[in-house]
């Protein structure tokens, strides 16, 4: 089980702040494709991914138990 946190417009698009993906292991890119297909989240190439609160590249592996966050372009400050 992988926990996926959503923020900003992605949270509104998905209608939820948190999803649970039933998968043992997948790459960041695979997760994005999955979210695109199953939750109709678009333009995810513009979105950063954090695994356990650290930014990750598309190739990095997400394992069951990890907390993943989708980070749209930030606008703090």
């Amino acid at each position, binding site marked *: 089980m992988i926990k996926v946190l959503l*923020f*900003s*417009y992605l949270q509104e698009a998905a209608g939820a702040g948190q999803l649970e993906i039933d998968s043992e292991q997948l790459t960041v890119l695979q997760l994005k494709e999955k979210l695109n297909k199953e939750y109709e989240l678009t333009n995810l190439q*513009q979105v950063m991914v954090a695994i356990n609160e650290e*930014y990750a590249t598309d190739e990095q592996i997400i394992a069951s138990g990890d907390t993943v966050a989708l980070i749209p372009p*930030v*606008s*703090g*400050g």
Partner: protein
Amino acid sequence: MSKMFEITDKPISMEDIVKKVERREAGAITTFIGTVREFTKGKRTLYLKYEAYVPMAEKKLAEIGSEIKEKWPDAHVAISHRIGKLDIKDIAVVIAVSTPHRKDAYEANEYAIERIKQIVPIWKKEHWEDGDMWIGDQLETTSYPSGKPEGLE
């Protein structure tokens, strides 16, 4: 003890943040105070909402603190960013930097705000008279040309 790097849903007192970096050896303190602007490119904002991925945002703020410590070893830094609903003129962020020498206090402070706008997971939703929008970055588009925040290691 008060946190040097915090995301808070309460109003920020600039004096509290400055107190965190005050020292007997540091004669120069700079602050940056980001407030909610009423007009951006002629468009009138009614209020804002800020949202954050709080634990990661605080971690990233602390990371900016570490980066500054490396570049300006004598600098002390405190940053507070507010989330939730903010009205015009409300304080969104305060950055305070104290250093023995003033040049460093300006440079390190400006470095901090630039980095906040690159790597800290905080999002702003503008509420105008005619609608609202999540603001994607400082250019008010929602895409990064490079596919990821600039300056990210």
